[in-house]
């Protein structure tokens, strides 16, 4: 009697291990949560300082195109207009997504529908290789191959949105492809059977059933690619031209939010207006990536409902 009672009241070794594991897990989660919150707080406090401490108007920040944080203009106001960089960032992102999507879809369909065995066996390593190439290599290829070619075709320096778009297109292609493959593989096989059994050809099945059913997850794939393109700094910085000017076409030198950050952050002193202005750019990047994330979640939820 007593021995069973004692045993029942005594925590077993497995229970103690369970508690131990739980404690470790919670500690790790807490550390990461603190890290994320600190980063958010740091960027936000620095980024907002431009407007609260240095009294730059938020409106001129998002609507002006002259960027020269170290100098004052004729009215004694610092020249902090980020519009040109925002326009360029969005343009390269959207163009890269528009170019990459059809290629990514074609490759994904080839790997899942047209030649699932052979296609996946050959293309999977290729895509993984593309992911593994460092962005500086992409930028270097862009600088030595793409930029001279554009210069030859259109004149000028060759640097600008077009060069940035082409480099980003190759960089986000594997991301969009991999996620599209996942989206198509997640479709239940019975959709395919149902469509074929109604007399649909393979192509009709792909574009009328599979692509339509996978649309929410395919959109998520494209937005993931856009988030990556929006945040990419190094490769873009090497081919964009790094002149903070409103782009007048696809081949004029300009700058993105990220390229301006990477080129200038080493040239400013912490706590000064030029430094704070750069943090404001970082804040814009952070807010945008948050919006991309929310979009992905929103679309994912809608996809589950249907």
């Amino acid at each position, binding site marked *: 009697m007593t021995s069973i009672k004692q045993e029942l009241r005594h925590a077993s070794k497995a229970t103690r291990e369970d508690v131990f594991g739980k404690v470790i897990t919670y500690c790790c989660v807490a550390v990461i949560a603190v890290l994320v919150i600190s980063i958010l707080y740091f960027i936000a406090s620095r980024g907002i300082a431009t407007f609260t401490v240095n009294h730059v108007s938020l409106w001129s920040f998002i609507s002006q195109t002259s960027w020269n944080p170290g100098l004052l203009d004729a009215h004694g106001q610092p020249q902090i207009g980020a519009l040109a960089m925002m326009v360029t960032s969005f343009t390269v992102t959207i163009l890269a997504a528009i170019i990459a999507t059809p290629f990514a879809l074609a490759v994904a369909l080839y790997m899942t529908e047209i030649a699932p065995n052979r296609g996946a066996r050959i293309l999977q390593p290729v895509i993984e290789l593309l992911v593994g190439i460092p962005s500086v290599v992409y930028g270097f290829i862009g600088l030595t191959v793409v930029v001279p070619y554009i210069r030859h075709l259109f004149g000028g320096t060759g640097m600008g949105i077009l060069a940035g778009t082409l480099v980003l297109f190759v960089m986000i292609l594997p991301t969009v492809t991999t996620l599209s493959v996942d989206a198509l593989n997640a479709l239940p096989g019975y*959709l395919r*059977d*149902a469509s074929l*059994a*109604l*007399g649909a*050809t393979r192509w009709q099945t792909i574009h009328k*059933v599979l692509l*339509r*059913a996978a649309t929410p997850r395919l959109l998520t794939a494209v937005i993931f690619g856009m988030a990556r393109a929006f945040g990419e700094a190094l490769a873009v910085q090497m081919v964009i031209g790094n002149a903070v000017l409103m782009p007048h076409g696809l081949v004029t030198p300009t700058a993105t939010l990220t390229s301006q950050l990477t080129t200038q952050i080493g040239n400013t002193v912490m706590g000064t207006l030029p430094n704070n202005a750069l943090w404001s750019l970082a804040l814009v990047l952070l807010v945008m990536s948050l919006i991309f994330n929310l979009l992905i979640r929103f679309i994912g939820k809608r996809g589950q409902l249907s």
Partner: protein
Amino acid sequence: MSMLTTENLHLYYGQKEALKGIDLAFEAQTMTALVGPSGCGKSTLLRCFNRMNDQVSNAKITGSIWFDRENVNGPAISLVTLRQKIGMVFQQPNPFPFSVYDNVAYGLRLAHSLPKAVIDERVETALKQAAVWDEVKDHLTENAMGFSGGQQQRICIARLLAVLPKVILLDEPTSALDPISSAKIEATLMQLKRDYTIIIVTHNLQQAARISDRTVFMLDGNVIESGPTQTLFMTPENQQTSDYLNGKFG
């Protein structure tokens, strides 16, 4: 007149022989049940009629299937037309994640661009034939996945009726459904067999006895016995048929 006839039909999955020479005739406006234990080849046989076995890369078929004097396995056959003439209902209800209307109109929109009015009318007729119209008529734009399993299965039946088939193949259409939904599907099928040739694979012997006109008993890739359902169930000629019907194996 026989709607479908098989002649010495063999099917191999790689080295394994799944169908070992099937000779059967399926009458028009008749419901034939294929029964037998799991793995006896009844679903495989069903999938030969609309060439769904083409999807299986290592399947090899010899022999012929005559559908209105045309060999289904012949090189000249149009798979698209064949599958419109011989429709299939699967074990799991498999509507597309689209609206009810788009599901039923799917097959119609594949072939040619019909006027909207014609599609509307065919969709309504098909849903009425499948005895699901009253339940979905006010929800035609809602996602078909939101309906119950039984309703989904009848939407799938309507989807194939809309392309005006001659033959309907059903692969255990009620095995994933509750008894009430199953009864509704059975009632629907009883209506449909007046106009269509129906072949139904079922594990449920009572179901076969209730709704089919003829029954085929298969075992290990062979047809053991076939005949009118009444005769086969009451006075089976073969001892194996008798044993199976009496629950001695399977």
